[in-house]
Structure formats: structure tokens, C-alpha cells
């Protein structure tokens, strides 16, 4: 054994162990996120438990098992729990999501295995997804249509019909709210700014005043009509109600205007569940968030992330490429160039929050503030560009990712054999022509790699964005149907910040946690995919020029 130790072999094994730990950590992390994120959409089985608690009070609980844990009996005993029989060292405890938030005090509760008398899986429990107060579990009993109670033979199809109708009406109302009402409000605000602008320039003549007033009156009249239509739809959607028996055994009336969907999870087969799973994912990526971001989808966050990153890519690519070309092709080789190169590489290591601070001070307050003074005096003191917004976020991240693009492009440039350059020059091309026709096309995969890496880094950055433009809930997207269609000064939502906000700032962390995992999975898969693409492009590139060199 001593000899074995002397040979150093155990230490080699230890280093091997380190690699294994790293690998397990990486893969385990990705698997954990993937598992938790994707299982969120899987329709869980709904159980009904009969429970007798400490004080021998019997009750019924309907819900899904959310989590389970083993608790040492001693801890329970010291917390004042008593057991009738010997239960061993540990007791299983289930976290049950019972929903029905407005009727019971807790929509999540811990239930001890020892308290459970029986557990069943009734087929006709309905899971009702609602736009307020979370999910509702219960047995459908009847329908109230326009004030009259109906008891149809096939209650489930009647349910589905009525809900479909209400959802369609609600969607229409939402369209009006977002489309027409939004446009009218936007135009009214523009009118106010216009009149304020005239006032500031001392050009608010009577005729202009009258003109603005007439336009305003017209818009207001339009608004009245649209609003009436909107409320009519809303009332119509709320015409019917459904009656459901909940776990307390009481019949509860739920108005249909808050109900989004109904499923009978226990009745679904594997195929049905898979179908539901895909529908769930689809809804997640295409819906707006609800209830302080703890329910619904993340579409605005996806849109905001993609839009901001694209904007950033548009800004960073030309500057990064020009800087790299200058550094590699034009700058004289000397200590200064070397210093610049080191400085650029090091800037990639400067903490992102520092860029955020710089962006806030320089772009938002100084640059944006000046723009407001010069071009938007009518809106002051409310800032237009002088407050955090998507353009400033894009600019800040552009500076943050500039080193990535420069380094990657320069690497690509240095991989191009000098013979290619010399050949082009020997044939009479100028340096600019060589660059434009030969060098840049050959370096384009490297530029692409840099860009992809920059995009991957930018998509995952959150800290600087918290200072320069991201919000937990943006009422409007940066692109809409109102002139000038692209609103660069608006604040936006971001997947990364969404994770932070929902996971740490939301009122109901327990309910929101699966959604955070799902969002994390979305973000991770986008970023890992981008990185793998970059690695692939880079490897391909290396192979390509390896053959060129020989």
C-alpha cells in the first residue's frame, strides 16, 4: 500500500475524481433544470385524500402532490407533533397544491403520511385554469346561464361549450383593449405633447388650439364607442357561471370571465397528457404573464430578450469588426498595439455590473438626458430617453460584448494565411480590395462565432440590465402598431430578470417556482444552443484553414 501511494497513482485518481465531480455538476445542473422545467407542463394526477389530523378532525383534500420530503421524527416531536403508533425514524411529508386560493387560507399545505386515511384518484375532478387566483380543483355540478340554473345531461361538454364561448369573447375584449384603446390613448398622449410643444415655442395659436381640441374630441368620441363595445363584450363573457363542488363539499359559483380552460387530468391517457404537455409549452411561450408574473406565459420576456439582443448585435458587429481589422491589419505592431490588445481582452473580464453603472450614468442620465432636453422638451419633466430603456440596454451590452467580438474576429483574421493576402496584393488589388473581397469573407465564420458568443453572453446578462432598462412588467412591447412602430425608449421584459423577479420578488414563491424552472430551461437551452453553434462554427473553421495552410 505504501508503495502504491509512492507511485503517485492515488493522486492521479484524485484528479480524475475532480473531473468526474465537475462533469456531474454540469450535467446534473442541466438535467435538473430540464427535468423541473419540463415537468411543469406535464398534467399531474389529481388526488383526493381523506385526512385525520392531530386533533382528530377529519377533512378532505383535493390537489396534486407538489413535493415530498422525509422528516426526522424527532424534529416533529420537538415541534409538538404526537404520533399514535411507532412510525420509525422518519415520516414522509407531502406538499400538496390545493388551489382554490380565495376559499381556503393556504393554497399549499404540508400533509403527514401518518395523517392520511385514504387516497383516491376520481376521474371526474376538473382542473380549472383561471386568470385570477390560480387553479381551482373540484367536481363540476351545474351551469348558470344568464341567471338560470341548468343541469344538462352531459355536464362536461356543456362546460366546455360555455367556457369556449366566454374565452372567445374575452379574447375579443382583450384585442380591443390592446389594439384600439391602446392606439387611442397613444394618440391622445401625442396630442397633449403636441400642444405642449406649441406652448413651449410660443406658437400655440388659436387655430392650432382649436385643431388639437377637435382632434381630441374626435378621439374621445371614438374612445366612448370602443369602450362601450369593450364593456359589452366583458359583460357578455361574464354572463354565465359554473357551479363546482370543492374539497370542502360546498358548491362554489365561478364566473366564466375568469376561467381560461378546464381539464380532467385523471382521465387523460399518455397520449392525452403528451398533447397537453405540448399545448402547455406552446401557451408558455406565447402567452402574457398573469398574476404578478407567477402564472401564464413569458412571451413579452422572450420578445424583449430577443429584440434587445438583436439590437445589440446590430450595434456591436460593425464596431467590433472594424476595431479588430484596425488592430490586426492597419495598426503598427508595437508595444501600444500590444497594450491595447491586452486591455481589450481584460475588458471582457470586467464585472458586468460596472458596465451597468457606466450605462446608467453615461447613456441614460447624460446622453438620454441631453436628448430629452434637445428633442423632447415638451414631455419634460417626464423623461423620454432620459430613463432606462431598451436602446440603452442594447448599447450597454454592446460595449460589454465588444471585447468578445474583437477577440474572436482578430483570431479569425490571424488564422488567414499571409500567402492569401500576398497573392491578392501581387495580383494588383489594393489593400482595401483585399480586405473586402478576400479577408473579410474568409474571416466571416470567425465574425459569426464572435457574434454568436456575444449574443449568448448578452442573453444571459441580467445585472447591468437591472440598471439600464429592464422591468418586471412592461405594459407595452417595444414594437407595436403605433407610429413610429419601434419604440426604442421603452422599458422591456427579459427572461433572465424574469427569473430573478419571479423567484425572489414575487409574493407567492412556492406557486411561482415551477414557472421559474421553466423559464430557466428556456433561457439555458437558447444559450447552450447558441454556444454549441459557436463551438461548431469554430471547429469547422479550424478544419477549413488547416487544409489551406498546407
Amino acid at each position, binding site marked *: 500500500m505504501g508503495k502504491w501511494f509512492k507511485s503517485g497513482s492515488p493522486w492521479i485518481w484524485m484528479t480524475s475524481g475532480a473531473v468526474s465531480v465537475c462533469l456531474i455538476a454540469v450535467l446534473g445542473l442541466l438535467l435538473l*433544470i430540464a427535468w423541473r422545467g419540463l415537468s411543469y407542463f406535464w398534467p399531474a394526477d389529481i388526488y383526493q385524500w381523506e385526512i385525520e389530523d392531530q386533533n382528530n378532525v377529519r377533512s378532505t383534500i383535493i390537489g396534486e402532490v407538489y413535493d415530498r420530503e422525509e422528516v426526522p421524527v424527532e424534529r416533529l416531536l420537538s415541534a409538538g407533533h404526537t404520533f399514535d403508533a411507532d412510525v420509525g425514524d422518519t415520516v414522509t411529508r407531502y406538499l400538496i397544491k390545493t388551489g382554490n386560493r380565495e376559499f381556503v387560507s393556504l393554497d399549499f399545505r404540508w400533509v403527514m403520511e401518518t395523517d392520511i386515511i385514504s387516497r383516491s384518484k376520481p376521474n371526474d375532478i376538473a382542473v380549472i385554469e383561471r386568470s385570477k387566483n390560480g387553479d381551482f380543483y373540484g367536481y363540476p355540478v351545474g351551469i348558470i346561464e344568464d341567471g338560470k340554473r341548468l343541469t344538462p345531461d352531459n355536464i362536461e361538454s356543456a362546460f366546455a361549450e360555455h367556457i369556449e364561448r366566454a374565452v372567445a369573447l374575452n379574447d375579443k375584449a382583450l384585442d380591443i383593449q390592446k389594439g384600439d384603446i391602446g392606439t387611442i390613448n397613444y394618440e391622445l398622449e401625442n396630442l397633449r405633447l403636441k400642444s405642449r410643444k406649441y406652448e413651449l415655442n410660443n406658437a400655440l395659436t388659436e387655430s392650432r388650439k382649436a385643431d388639437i381640441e377637435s382632434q381630441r374630441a374626435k378621439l374621445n368620441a371614438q374612445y366612448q364607442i370602443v369602450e362601450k363595445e369593450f364593456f359589452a363584450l366583458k359583460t357578455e363573457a361574464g354572463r354565465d357561471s359554473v357551479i363546482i363542488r370543492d374539497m370542502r363539499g360546498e358548491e362554489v359559483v365561478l364566473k366564466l370571465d375568469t376561467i381560461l380552460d378546464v381539464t380532467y387530468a385523471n382521465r387523460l391517457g399518455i397520449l392525452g397528457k403528451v398533447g397537453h404537455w405540448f399545448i402547455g409549452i406552446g401557451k408558455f411561450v406565447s402567452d402574457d404573464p398573469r398574476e404578478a408574473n407567477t402564472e401564464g406565459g413569458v412571451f413579452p420576456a422572450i420578445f424583449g430578450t430577443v429584440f434587445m439582443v438583436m439590437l445589440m448585435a446590430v450595434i456591436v458587429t460593425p464596431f467590433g469588426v472594424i476595431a479588430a481589422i484596425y488592430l490586426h491589419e492597419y495598426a503598427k505592431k508595437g508595444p501600444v498595439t500590444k497594450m491595447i490588445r491586452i486591455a481589450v481582452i481584460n475588458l471582457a473580464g470586467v464585472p458586468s455590473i460596472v458596465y451597468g453603472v457606466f450605462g446608467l450614468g453615461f447613456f441614460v442620465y447624460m446622453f438620454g438626458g441631453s436628448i430629452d432636453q434637445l428633442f423632447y422638451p415638451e414631455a419634460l419633466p417626464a423623461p423620454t430617453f432620459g430613463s432606462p430603456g431598451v436602446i440603452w440596454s442594447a448599447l450597454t451590452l454592446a460595449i460589454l460584448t465588444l471585447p468578445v467580438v474583437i477577440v474572436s474576429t482578430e483570431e479569425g483574421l490571424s488564422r488567414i494565411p499571409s500567402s492569401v493576402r500576398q497573392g491578392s496584393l501581387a495580383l494588383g488589388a489594393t489593400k482595401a480590395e483585399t480586405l473586402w473581397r478576400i479577408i473579410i469573407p474568409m474571416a466571416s465564420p470567425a465574425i459569426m462565432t464572435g457574434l454568436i458568443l456575444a449574443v449568448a453572453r448578452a442573453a*444571459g446578462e441580467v445585472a447591468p440590465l437591472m440598471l439600464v432598462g429592464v422591468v418586471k412588467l412592461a405594459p407595452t412591447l417595444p414594437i407595436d402598431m403605433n407610429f413610429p412602430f419601434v419604440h426604442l425608449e421603452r422599458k422591456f421584459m427579459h427572461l433572465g430578470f424574469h427569473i430573478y423577479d419571479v*423567484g425572489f420578488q414575487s409574493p407567492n414563491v412556492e406557486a411561482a417556482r415551477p414557472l421559474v424552472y421553466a423559464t430557466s430551461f428556456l433561457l439555458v437551452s437558447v444559450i447552450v444552443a447558441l454556444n454549441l453553434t459557436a463551438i461548431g462554427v469554430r471547429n469547422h473553421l479550424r478544419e477549413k484553414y488547416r487544409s489551406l495552410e498546407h
Partner: protein
Amino acid sequence: METQVSQPGSAAKNLLINNGTSRRAIMDKAAQVGVTVGGTMVFVALLLIFFYLLYVVKPIFDSAEVAPVASADYHDSKPALMVGSDEQNEVMYRVSQLGKVDFFDTQTSQLVRTEQINTPAGSHVVSSSAAMPSEQRFALGLSNGQVIIAGVEFGVTYPDNKRLITPKLRFYNGSAPLTVDADGHALNHLAFDYSSDKMSFVYQDDNKVWRISRQEGEENMMTEEVEWVSYSGTIPDAPVNVQQQLMTPDQRQLILSSGDKLFVYDIRDAEAVSLRQVLELGRAKAKVTNVSLLAGASSLLVSYDSGLVQQYFQVNGDQGRQYQEIRDFDNHAGIKSVASEFYRKSFVTITDDGNLSLLYTTSQRELFSEKFDLKNPGTIGFSPRSNALVVEAGGKLNLFSVSNTHPEVSWSAMWSKVWYEGYPEPKYVWQSTSGSDDFEAKLSLMPLAFGTMKAALYAMLFATPLAIAGAVYTAYFMSPKVRAIVKPTIEIMEALPTVILGFLAGLWLAPLIEDNLPGILTLLVLLPASVLSSAYAWHKLPAKWKQRLPDTYQEIMLIPVILFIGWFSFAISPSLESAFFGGDTRMFITNELGITFDQRNALVVGIAMGFAVIPTIFSIAEDAVFSVPRHLSNGSLALGATTWQTLTRVVLLTASPGIFSAVMMGLGRAVGETMIVLMATGNTAIMEWSVFEGMRTLAANIAVEMPESAIGSSHYRVLFLAAFVLFIFTFFFNTIAEVVRQRLRERYSSL
């Protein structure tokens, strides 16, 4: 691979132009200029970050500026009771000891208004007293035992859209004087304070007895009229010769200055006043010239003729709250008078020969000191916004403009212990905001720098061994096929958004660790043990079996072992918990060991941030080890060294600068990481090394507080300073790492 492309010579260029292709030559030139300008601009923009941060930070270290603006003549032989100005510094005023109030326009230096307070027939003013500067109020004690309370007020109106400031006097308690002494004694040495429901007066009557009289108002619910009830008493053990008498604005304390002693009385109950403390100011050869209250009225400023100014405030001790000497300021000799600002802790002193000094107590900074042509100076006072100073000297009332934007910040206040008002001892405190108005921001960067270091240290403790050992194995022992998969897999973790790591750390890992503390401990012990024992088992395995498995797949063989050990540790955790820690480890740590336990603690941060740092270190260290020339290790092996000896004595030694640079890079990343720390710690700015407690780092602090700080405020600039410190720190470490790496690359190429 650097390539130097030769420029076409001038002859070649001429050839181009002569051939009628001047457009191409111009294009070529234009491209060169364009790229050069564009490239330089980009680097200038990057440089801008540095200079912009510096530009925002700089004003906090600037000293104050004081400059004379205007002066006006007055006629009075005695020093004024109080002087001051309105908020806009358009009107300054002077209140004489006899109750004559003069208002001067600062633009024209003309007297604009004079008010003489009329005393009732047969009485005259025997003493006068000014309240705290921020109240702009004074009281006149009369010979018949009555008192008149008046205040200076400025009405602002905008006729014709122009600001017009109208100074006036306001009389509290109606126009009739208030009777304080029922026996009709004169009110000598008056001290008073007034609030809307309470007034207190302290005076010495004709029999040299110190008395207190208090009026407390109670609003009648029905008629909404205020009924005043009066209480009175005597002040026991009072000194005979009193130079100065001060009352705190909350009307709870009275301070009498006599010789080199301060008598502190508790006057909360006017009918039972008690002596709380007698403070010996004893300074050899120095005489007390002035005692005054600092803004907030918690501190006393005692000035001496030698030029010394001392700050005293109450500190909780064995005998309750007692005044204690906190800090000294050495100043020019002959201090004539002292004035403090309305809201901040700045004060100004003036000496007999006109030397004006502006100081700030907490940061212990002398912000300004200059000799002005001021003969025989008297009373001084700040303007309400503290941007002007009124000084009376030699028959002239002088207005000085004051620019003093960030007095509370100094290098020493940020990096060394500061004794704040209300604290029992000097401390490092970061507390930038609070709910109350008279709150003093405590901006010590020390706890944040400490937190940053702590987080980085724990992360590095976790990451460095794993990453370097992993890198060595991957680079030196692993078969190329496996390496081609393993390396990118670990490197992909670098791209993982830290917000996700932070979220997992805060919401998944922290509760997991809290519930399975014994399991974590077991894991730490069992993991190396299991690796070693499986290695030994492999060593003892019959060669026949070994041949079936290729030797190079060691790393894969260990994965199931480690997975099992991990599962096992967590599985036995509850049993261990009930066997050794009474069923609840957390309670055990708190109660039995007396260690504070936060759920989101340094252990969680260390692991989570360690994972963020591992790929950085791994990647660079692996490159360094891998690019050690093979002939070096081959030579060593050929001479009979074992692989391990070759590794430690040859390969690692050669690659050590690269590994060093990898660690530096990792440190740079750990120091600046924001989201993980923000989400996985409690973000409390404490200074404890304990693994089970959290911290607040510079970066997380910026993320939390930056959006709320007002532009241009001291807080805003200090946050910029924090960012600047982070910038310099990481830039410095990264530069070292990069330079080392480049040197190494050159050395390898020469080998």
C-alpha cells in the same frame, strides 16, 4: 500567428494612379482612414468607461468653496443674537440681542426692512435666546417675567412671473407676551425651545435661582382650541456663573456651561429636573469659548480659545447614556464663534483674525480654511440650503456663497472605523438610506469590500482545487477522444447565465443544504475516501479483469462511484441528524454551538459561485498544462521518473505561470459576480468570516441600491466609486494574468 503584410511602396501607388485607377487608390486610402478612425474610436469608447467613472467619482473628494458675495452695513455694538438668510439667499437678516431685526437685500446691499419688537410698558429686554438654526426662531426675556417668541419668515409670491421674497416676523403665542415667571422676576440667561404643542423656558431669576417653566398644549377635541397647561420647577445644583445655556429641540435636555464644566440636566419632567452628568472639559491652558449643538441636536461642539473643537455625544454605558468625547478638530487659534448647518453635520468656525474654516464631523474632514478680511467677527449663520453663510464682522453683514456638496464622504470615512452618533463604539457601517429625515448616511465601503472578499474566498476555496485537478487530469492523462467531449462540456458552464445559478443556489441549494447539513459533512469526508478506495480496489484487481476495461476511462468509472456516494450521504443525513444533532442540525448549530445560521450563507455562495468560476480556471489551466511541450515530459519519463513525478516536478512547474493566471482570472470573475451573490445571500452588510452567515458584496450592493439613488448625490457617487474599485481591481488582476500568459506562450515557443 502574426502576419506582417508589406505595404505597397510609393512607386507602386504612383503606378496605380498613373494607370488611371485613382478611384481605387482613393478608395484604398479612404478605407484605411475609415478603419483607423473607427478602430481608434472604439478603443477611445472603451477608455471612456474608465474616465467617465472617474469623472463621476471625483467630486466627492473635492474640497468646499467659500467666496464672498455681498455685504451690508449695520449699526450695533453688541454681537447679533442670530444671523441668516432666506432659502434663495436673496435676503439676509440680523437679529440683535435687543430684538431689533434688520433685513438686507443681498443684490443691492440695502436695508429693506427693520422690525423692532415692542416690549410692554415698563419692561425691557434682559436676555435673549435663539433656537436651533433650522427653526429660525428666537425669544426675548423681559424684566417683568414675560417672554416674546418670534421667528423670521419669508413669504414667496410670484407677481408678473417674477419671484418676490417678502421678509417678515412671525409672533408665536399671539402678539401678547407670555408670562413665564409668575412672581414677575426678570428672565436672565434665557434658554428656550418651542414646538406647536410644547414650549420650555429656562432662566435665572433675580435671586440667581435657575428655573424652568413649561407650557404644554392640549387640543380640545370639541372646539379644536389649544389649552395650555403650565408646569414649573427649579433646576437643582446649578452653577452660579453660567456662560451659556442650551436646550435640545426635543425639550428633554438642558446643558449649562460653566467654566470648564458642562452640566447636563434631564428636563423631561419640568417639576422634577435632575442632574444627569457633569462633564469635565478640562483642557490644560485652553479656555472654553463656545458650546453649541450640531444639526440633529445629538452632538455638542465645544470650542476652545486654542483653536481646538471637540465633538461630544451620548454613548450608552454603565451609567446610562453619558456624553463622551468623540473626536477633536485642530483649528486656528482664537475661535470666536461656531455655527452648524441646518441638516447636515457640517460646522463652520471663525477666529478673531477672520480665519474661516468649514469642517464636517463624521468624516473628520476640513473642507475649507481661508483667511478673509473680516475684522472683529461676531455671529455666523448658515442659509437654509447650506449654500451660503452670513457672517457679521466690523459693522458689516457679509454673505458668502458656499459650495459644499459631499462633505460626508472622505477616504478615511469609507475605509476606517467611524464613530457615528448613537453608536456605542467606532464601527464600519454601510447604511445608505433610512425612513427618518434626520438620518445620516453611513457610507463605509469596508463591510462591502469585506463581503466581496469573503464571497470570493469561499468560491475560490471550492473551485480552485476542483478546477486545477480537473484541468491537470484532462490535459495530461485523458485520452484525446474523451477530452474532446469533456472540455467543451465543462466550458459550456461558463456560458450558463449566472442568474440561473443564483436562482438554483437561493431556492434549491440553500434549503437542500440547510436540511442535509450532516450529509454535506459526510460527503466532504466520503468523497475523497471513496475515490481512494476505488483506486486501491482497481490497483488490486487481477490483471485479467483490468485488461477488459481500458485504463483511460478512469474518469468515467468514477462517475457511478461518486453518484452513489452523493446519494448515500444524503440518504443517511436524517439518521445522522437524529443520532448526533438531536434531530435538527440547524437548531444544534444555533443553540449548542452558538453560531448564527442563515439559510442563504457563505457556504451556498461558495458552492454556487465556485461552479461559475470552475470553467474559467479549468479552461485556462487546461490550456496551460496541455501546451507544455511533450518532449519535456517524455524526457523526464525516459529518465525513469513516474508519471506523477513527471507531472509534479516537470509539467506543473512549467505550467505554473499559466495556472497562476487561471486563478487570477477566476478571482476576477468571483469578485465581480453580481447575480449569484444577490440571490444566494441575505445581502446584509456584516463583517463575519463565518461560513454560516451571509454577506453583502460591492457588486450586489450596486445592483440593489443604484436604481434608487438620486443622481449626483453622495450615495450615487459612492456607488460609482464602488464600481470604479471593482473595475480597477478586476482589470489589475486580469492584466497580471494576461501578461503572465503571454510571457508563458513566448517561453513555450522558444522551448
